[in-house]
């Protein structure tokens, strides 16, 4: 969690930005964990969405 730098000054050297990821959690494991959470959320949403869809069909058979 959190940003990896306290100041952008340290990321700008010799007239150019340093070539690296510049987002929350860059360089650590948290982006991977968030990716896992996002993937699980999508699977759960599809399962729940399918359940709701089948229920709506069952009511009108």
């Amino acid at each position, binding site marked *: 969690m959190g940003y990896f730098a306290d100041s952008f000054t340290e990321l700008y050297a010799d007239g150019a930005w340093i070539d690296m990821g510049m987002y929350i959690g860059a*360089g650590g494991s948290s*982006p*991977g964990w968030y*990716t896992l959470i996002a993937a699980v959320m999508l699977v759960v949403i599809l399962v729940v969405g*399918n359940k709701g*869809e089948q229920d709506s*069909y069952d009511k009108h*058979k």
Partner: protein
Amino acid sequence: MEDQILALTEQLAAVTNAAQVTNTMFAETYYFLSIPLMVLIHAGFLLYEMGQTRVKNVLSSGIKNLLAFAFTIVTFYLFGWWFYWALPTFPYDLASGAGYMAISGIEYANAIALPWGDSAQYMGPNMGDHASGVFWGAFALFAATTASIASGALIERIQTVGFVICAIVLGSFAWVVAAAWGWHADGWLVTEFGFHDFGAAGLVHAVAGFFALGVLMNLGPRVGKYNDDGSANKIVGHNLPLTVAGLMLIIVGFFGFLMACIILPGEAWSWYADGGTTIYGTPMTLSALGFNIVLACSGGIIGAWIVTKDPFWMMSGCLAGIIATASGLDVYFGSHIIIIATVAGMIIKPCAEWLEGLGIDDAVGAVTIHGTIGVFGVVVLGIFGSGIPGLGAFAPEGTVAISLWGQFVGAVVMFLLGFVPGYIVSWLLHKAGMLRVPEAVQIKGLDPVKVPAQAYPEVMVSPDTEA
């Protein structure tokens, strides 16, 4: 004198640096702007599909199309992009190692295309990387286009979540494998067979069209489409003007799609410092597209008009004109384009009617317009373009040139990459009860059953809707 030389050297370095910054920002902006243009393809497919739907199913068709867009893009981020970089040499190299250009293989894909670990730096904000995001965005929209193409064929009887799963398989796997093999300088179809498909007639359109065919075979026709004697009824959509306007928007979006197929010069990832190329490194300019896209549109409309006199087929002909010529938009002369596009416009309706006669209920003609015409376009380039070098100036010696045989092999591969995954995933969904909407619901209408909104005033109902 030495001071002046030193000052001039510094000025030259500053000017060179500024020119590089301008080139980089231009390239980034160029691909970025192709993305919203390609979103217009989806706006077009949305209108096209909803217009071809009866009133009772309009919103369900729209929801399906929107979800195809959303889920395809998200899953393309999670794993689709990785397949593109990992698989160009597979199965020629069973270990899927790097090809000659050294921008492929599992190791390379692991380094740049996974949203976790060290490669995550190329999958998010990075001030040193002005290319990954815009290339990914353009490819993600190509992926979503494949799902939208298939979507229209399946309207009014496919379940929503079942369709979303089909869209994920198509948009984040099937077409991506086709692109890795045939739309990458290390792809084995390119290096071994000289396969050439500049504008993705095969790897987007044919794959999506035949994926739809595979799904249609398990999905079955809409209730009321066929009579007991096997003859087909015409199920008329509720708004032809909406469909025609949607098709025109798709055409507008294709200008963005095709401009994104050009590799700009002067960057670390460019083929050359001073000229644009195709994805294969062969010469290409936007100006060539200026000639050829609009001629293809016109030829397709004219060909469809003379056979059908129907605005739906005329605009479909416009799309078919682009698809039929897309493989060789970089090498065709304008007159080639007029001939090929006009023929494509002439054959779409007879092909669609032939398919309908086989019991395949393709509601918008997607299998024909994208699948059949996509394959037609790939093979036709083999007839007109045999002998053209397959890769650019930095290619290895002995690179295979474009040939009829290579284009034919590519066409067969594109057919299989579409049809087989489409058939298998829809068969599995059918067995799981997640493919076809029950007949009672089809008769009542999908919107009244599962959409908490109404498309039109209640006085507008489908004549075949049961209360």
